[in-house]
């Protein structure tokens, strides 16, 4: 087990190094000089040169890469070219919106998908199964920004249960923050729940056809007992994989929903940074997201081992 964890940790470190190089190179290749962009088209060449020196853009690429990486290791993500504030501060502010939103949406999606998937699998081919699979089709097909607008129309404008957008901040109280995140989280969770339900259902159906399920029935378990005691845990591996992928997506991919609800999240930050050629912000946010994805994958790997004893003995 210890060997398994150690091996996963090493691959985590290698992934991070490779990712940082790729991100740095890609951002370097992207056209547009931040200094001339910041000063506008009428700027004097010597002013641009002075700003380039100030931003450190005139150093060699290797030096810049190394100072970027070593800065990140100490928590210094550099200073935003456009806002002149520390990037770490900007990310931290946005993180407090994006991370709770992603977790909230993921929790909702899991809470919907598990019962729905199990329900459908237990009634394979029956009316309940058809209803659930039909609903998941719809859930995957509906664009989530449209669904978000419908939520706003119904719950914010007509019923006035929630505000239509914006985020009051956590310092105004936990419940106020949660309330502001509820509609966005539902909008984000819907398609994820639909996908996860389908994965749960098909994974369980695969397991229900396994020989050991028949063995369980031969011992005297009812089909429901067999499903809960022997089916569920075996069906969990593909479901865990999808949950890991979904978390990564929710963290960074909420940009449209953030836009609909005027949420100051990471997605909007990176979008603004790209349009303003604020390369240092782009690099840092992307790196942070990569880090989050890799850490989540590591946690998923640990969860695999917890679920499946065969992985523990293999080092």
């Amino acid at each position: 087990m210890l060997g398994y964890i150690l091996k996963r940790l090493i691959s985590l470190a290698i992934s991070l190094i490779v990712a940082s190089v790729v991100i740095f190179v890609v951002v370097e290749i992207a056209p547009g000089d931040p200094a001339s962009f910041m000063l506008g088209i009428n700027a004097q060449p010597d002013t641009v040169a002075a700003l380039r020196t100030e931003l450190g853009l005139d150093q060699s690429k290797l030096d810049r890469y190394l100072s970027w990486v070593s800065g990140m290791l100490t928590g210094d993500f550099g200073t935003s070219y456009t806002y002149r504030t520390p990037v770490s501060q900007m990310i931290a502010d946005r993180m407090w919106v994006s991370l709770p939103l992603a977790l909230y949406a993921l929790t909702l999606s899991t809470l919907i998908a598990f019962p729905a998937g199990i329900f459908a699998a237990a009634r394979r081919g029956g009316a309940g199964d058809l209803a659930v699979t039909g609903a998941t089709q719809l859930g995957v097909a509906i664009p989530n920004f449209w669904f978000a607008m419908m939520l706003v129309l119904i719950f914010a404008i007509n019923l006035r249960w929630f505000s239509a957008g914006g985020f009051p901040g956590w310092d105004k109280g936990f419940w106020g923050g949660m309330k502001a995140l509820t509609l966005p989280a539902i909008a984000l969770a819907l398609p994820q729940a639909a996908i996860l339900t389908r994965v749960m259902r098909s994974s369980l159906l695969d397991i229900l056809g396994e020989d050991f399920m028949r063995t369980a029935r031969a011992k005297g378990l009812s089909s429901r007992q067999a499903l809960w005691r022997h089916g569920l845990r075996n069906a969990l591996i593909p479901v865990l994989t999808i949950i890991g992928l979904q978390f990564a997506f929710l963290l960074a991919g909420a940009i449209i929903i953030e836009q609909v609800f005027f949420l100051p999240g990471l997605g909007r930050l990176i979008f603004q940074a790209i349009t303003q050629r604020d390369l240092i912000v782009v690099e840092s946010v992307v790196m942070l997201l990569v880090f989050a994805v890799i850490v989540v994958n590591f946690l998923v790997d640990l969860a695999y081992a917890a679920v499946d004893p065969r992985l523990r003995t293999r080092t």
Partner: protein
Amino acid sequence: MTLLSIENLTLAIHGTPILKGISLDIPEGEITALTGESGSGKSMTALATIGLLPKGETTTGTITFDGANLLFLPESQMCDLRGREIGMVFQEPMTALNPVQTIGAQVMETILIHKAMPPDKAEERAREVLARVGLPPDRFPLSRYPHELSGGQRQRVVIAMAIALRPRLLIADEPTTALDVTTQAQILDLLKRLVKEDGMALMMITHDLAVVSDMADTLNVMRHGEIVEAGPTVEVLREMRHPYTRALFEASRHQADLGDAKADAPLLSVQNVSRDYPLPRSSLFGTRPQFRAVKNVNFEIRRGERVGLVGESGCGKSTLTRAILGLEPVQAGQITLDGDPVWQDSHPNLTVRRKMQVVFQDPYGSFNPRHRVSRLITEPFHLLPDPPRGAARDAAIAEALTAVGLKPEDAERHIHAFSGGQRQRIAIARALIIKPELIVFDEAVSALDVRVRAQILDLMANLSSAYGLTYLFISHDLSVVRSITDRVMVMRAGEIVEDRPTADIFASPDHPYTRELMNAAPQLPDFPEVQDAPHLTF
């Protein structure tokens, strides 16, 4: 006393008739065997008894157990009977256990689900019953997971689960078919002992007449959903009133007429070959330990020779086969065909590769279902620098199909239109089409019913005399190898322990392991009057 009585049982699944009026009685303390080929309905009879038939079934008739008709018993009462009064053991031990639960938890579950005793007592019983099936707790603690056990050990766990509450009826559906002969012998002994000790009734389902011939009290021969012959085993086997019983018996000990051996110049030469596999690292930075699957193996196959390679699972015979076919490199020694190495400069040697073909075990899994037969059997043509096209290709297809007893028109059909035996013929046609120097048959008849197997063995024998084939026949089954080879090599733990002419080995095995294999293999009784059985066509 009759424990289970099946009367006039019929079964249809989605309208397709499966069982057509089965009647049989299973008395306490006896072994009642159901035998027949695949699709005869023997497993369905078992599943009907335990109430686990697939969906869409309609049944008529009665299955009386303990005064109740099991067919009409509500599901909750059936759940109560299963595991407590009726236990069941299945064919495939590798997948019959839940991989994420310990064996202790799974054995205890049988006891706890029926609330037969409190958890601490159940744990004690689980230990007892595992010890009883030959898995003593000091070597096989309850905390073991299924993947830490071998196939035979897993089957013991499945049996322990089935007998934990001392059921009065045990149903065993092909319990040893997936196991090696020596393991099979142990499991059969275990089942016999349990029946004797507990006075339980055993419904034993098997396709292998030899397995039941010396263990079952009563024998029921099934065919197309009917019992064609039934009675005390000795009587049934002695008299064989029904021609089908006779045909099964004949096919089970069928000897193909191989013709005389021709042994010319050496064709395949395997010299000091060893094959290592890396094992998982024991520490993070240490060197990876190696497992030597094939240890310093030496042999030759001469042109025209038909050689068998026999051994139990894990003995290295598949590894050796892959090395011979040039699919994997070897770590020591050399393999040459006609003087050319099969593996050269870290690549398979293509000039040698096209002189060898292989026929695999599974007639269902070894074809792409979306291709027509013509495309399937011409696949080896890609090995040729200048493959035949147009009329020459059609002629080659027609010749290969005719050689294996199929029609040239079959080339346009898809593989799903063919039965298992026909598929194996197509697999042989695929191997023959480029006229290879050497064919490797890798368990090529192990998945076939006895009568089909007999036909395929005859086909091999005929082809071998017609084309002067050289082949290596790999099998776990000594009796099959006997009729189809000139020479047999016995392999154990990566080494060839005996390599002699087939007749000599069977007359007087030298190595103790060969003797062990032969003793473990179930034997059909010898009844002289069967020799003049009428010729049957199917």
